[in-house]
């Protein structure tokens, strides 16, 4: 599959959507030439964020883009939801913090597993998390 020239947009509402996202990401990262470890890190980070989108964000979508920076090639994922938003991002990033039944590793974990991590959230409007993994 050639590198997507525009972002691939996938809906995230059910566990089946997460499965579909993982399979798509596996394909994209293999085609991008990522090592197995880097593939696994990106897919795991994506799995965490996708679950957050569904469990807390009330469903949303993920945009998958192939990116370039000079000689570097990478994959950028943007998770968007129009859910309740995160009131305190710093607390949410702390390991062990969970407002649900999780382990509280999702956001912090996704950040650690990625080369770049950006998050924006507005209470009552939604959340946008973007991660990038470079080859």
């Amino acid at each position: 599959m050639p590198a997507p020239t525009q972002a691939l947009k996938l809906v995230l509402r059910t566990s089946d959507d997460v499965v579909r996202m993982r399979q798509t990401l596996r394909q994209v990262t293999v085609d991008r030439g990522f090592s197995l470890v880097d593939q696994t890190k990106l897919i795991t980070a994506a799995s965490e964020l996708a679950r957050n989108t569904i469990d807390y964000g009330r469903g949303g979508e993920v945009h998958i883009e192939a990116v370039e920076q000079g000689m570097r090639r990478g994959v950028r994922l943007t998770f968007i939801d129009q859910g309740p938003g995160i009131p305190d991002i710093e607390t949410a990033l702390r390991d062990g913090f969970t407002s649900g039944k999780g382990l509280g590793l999702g956001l912090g974990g996704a950040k650690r597993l990625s080369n770049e991590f950006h998050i924006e959230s507005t209470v009552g409007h939604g959340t946008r998390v973007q991660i990038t993994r470079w080859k």
Partner: protein
Amino acid sequence: MERIPILKMGRFLLVTIQVDMHDQLVMTLQDDLTQSIVKHRVRGVLIDISSLDMVDSFIGRMIANISGMARVLDAATVVVGMQPAVAITLVELGLTLEGVRTALSVEKGMALLEQSAG
């Protein structure tokens, strides 16, 4: 209703996890395992994750829950077949799976359980 098969191997149970487990399947597995541990007076549970090319905190929580329930029922848990890329990622993710031992294969996992079951 679909179920993950639980194999009885002597005094132990073997469960093979595939990654595409949705929430209901996880709940069913945890229930089935608890019942099996009690019914067969099992001393150990082997969780085979050799087919998982990814373990996230959702799966990690399931393993931790299974291990916790088994411990309450006086059974040990060993996770077998963790792929190297998964191991590296788990460390970076910060998922420690405390109280859960690992082994490279089902055979080695059973040997570990035999030792601790006495």
